[in-house]
């Protein structure tokens, strides 16, 4: 029975010392220790968060760089493409222009030829006229000699002065 009978002395000392123990430990040990542990946990957590953030930012940066690079490439391609198109256009234009010019020149040449031809024909006509007149003069002068001979002569002349 002695075992389960709490002794007043021990209860007294237990109350006194335990209260002091709780008080001192709480004030000078548990609160600072818990605060420090919490602070350290927060520091670690913050560091980890920051690391994650930095890693994320890094990846963002890399992605951005890649994007920029891709953009630059695309732009370059665009420029090249545009340049090619422009060149193509210029080439086509030049060709068209050259063709047009050539055609114009040909036309001009044709017209020149035509003019020349007409002038030549006029000249030929004039020459033929003059020749005809000369022939006629000569015929007339011959007619005065013989009729038969005249016809023959005219034919002969005509043959001689066959146009073209």
């Amino acid at each position, binding site marked *: 029975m*002695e*075992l389960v009978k709490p002794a007043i002395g021990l209860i007294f*000392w237990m109350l006194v010392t335990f209260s002091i123990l709780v008080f001192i430990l709480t004030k000078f040990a*548990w609160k600072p220790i818990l605060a420090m*542990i919490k602070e350290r946990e927060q520091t670690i957590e913050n560091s980890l968060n920051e690391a994650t953030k930095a890693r994320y930012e890094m990846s963002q940066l890399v992605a951005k760089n890649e994007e920029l690079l891709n953009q630059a490439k695309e732009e370059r391609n665009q420029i090249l493409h545009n340049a090619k198109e422009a060149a193509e256009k210029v080439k086509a234009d030049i060709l068209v222009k050259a063709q047009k010019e050539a055609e114009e020149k040909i036309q001009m040449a044709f017209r020149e030829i035509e003019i020349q031809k007409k002038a030549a024909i006029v000249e030929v006509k004039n020459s033929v006229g003059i020749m005809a007149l000369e022939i006629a003069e000569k015929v007339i002068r011959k007619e005065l000699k013989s009729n038969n001979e005249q016809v023959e002569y005219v034919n002969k002349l005509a043959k001689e002065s066959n146009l073209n």
Partner: protein
Amino acid sequence: MNYTPKTYFKHILTAAFIAVLASFSVSAFAEETAEKAETKTEKKFDAGKLIIEHISDNHEWHILGEGENAVAIPLPVILYTAKGFDCFSSGKFHHGEETVESKYKYKLLEENNHVVILNEAGAVDEVATAGIIDISITKNVATLLFSVFCLLWAFLSVAATYKKNPNQAPKGLQSFVEPLIIFIRDEVAKPSIGAKYEKFVPYLLTVFFLILFNNLLGLIPILPGGANLSGNIAFTMVLAVITFVITTINGTKHYWHHIFAMPGVPKPVLIILTPIEILGVFLKPFVLMIRLFANMTAGHIIALSFFAMIFIFGEMSTGAGLGVSVVSVAFTVFMGLLELLVAFLQAYVFTLLSAMYFGSALEEGHH
């Protein structure tokens, strides 16, 4: 080992402490042997008495020997009587052999280690004895003071280490206690109490480490240990009562409402339920008290029983005693290991249940 002036100082202190203790016991021992060495009688070995003596409190710190030849550290006896405070060394009782004359004539009863007052005729004065309030520094009180001193030293130095190297990995004693502190905070207080857990963590930590330290101290059979403080009902009672007081003070309206009028229960049932709930309020700390007391005391009883077996068989024949001693030691080692587990387990259980009671008291109405 690195000898700095500080460690030297510590060693000197320790040596001085041991020397003081030794001088007490040696003087007591010397007196004993000088007085009655030859009146020794053959006594039958009483296992029950031995065990009860070991697990109960004592006015002196018994180390070895028995009866008048015992080597023990005398502890101060402090009595509050009708004539005021009375204080003397328990060594004056000479292990209960002699009476002490002070304001009264005191005698130490052998059967229960109580101090009683004798009247003129030499018989126990029941009236005066009933008036004694014995607040002596007994073996358990000395152990309590020792453990409080150790805990203060340990945790104040740990706190100093924390302040010295903030945000550093723990080292030394710090790395041993930190997991326990975090365990109590995160696995005991936080889930059991809830959002307002922080206010209770210091108390829970103190209880946990005090019980754990004393459980472990109880496993050591010689000097700093040997007492059965955490298996003493007064010790567990004070802790349980403090837990009860904290629970009661922090009880919310919801908590009391649940005790006196459980919501959703018909009125006639409440007549039965409410007394049970009220009983439960007191039963919880009571169970807390009994659990720790019974567990620790049982451990001590078992270990002592194994040792007592050696002497019981030894009385039959020396050979039987030797034979049994091998088995006893093996079993005691096994029990010691089991007790080591129990020491941690019981400290944890007491803390966890305290936290759960706080949690139930703080619970706000939401089901």
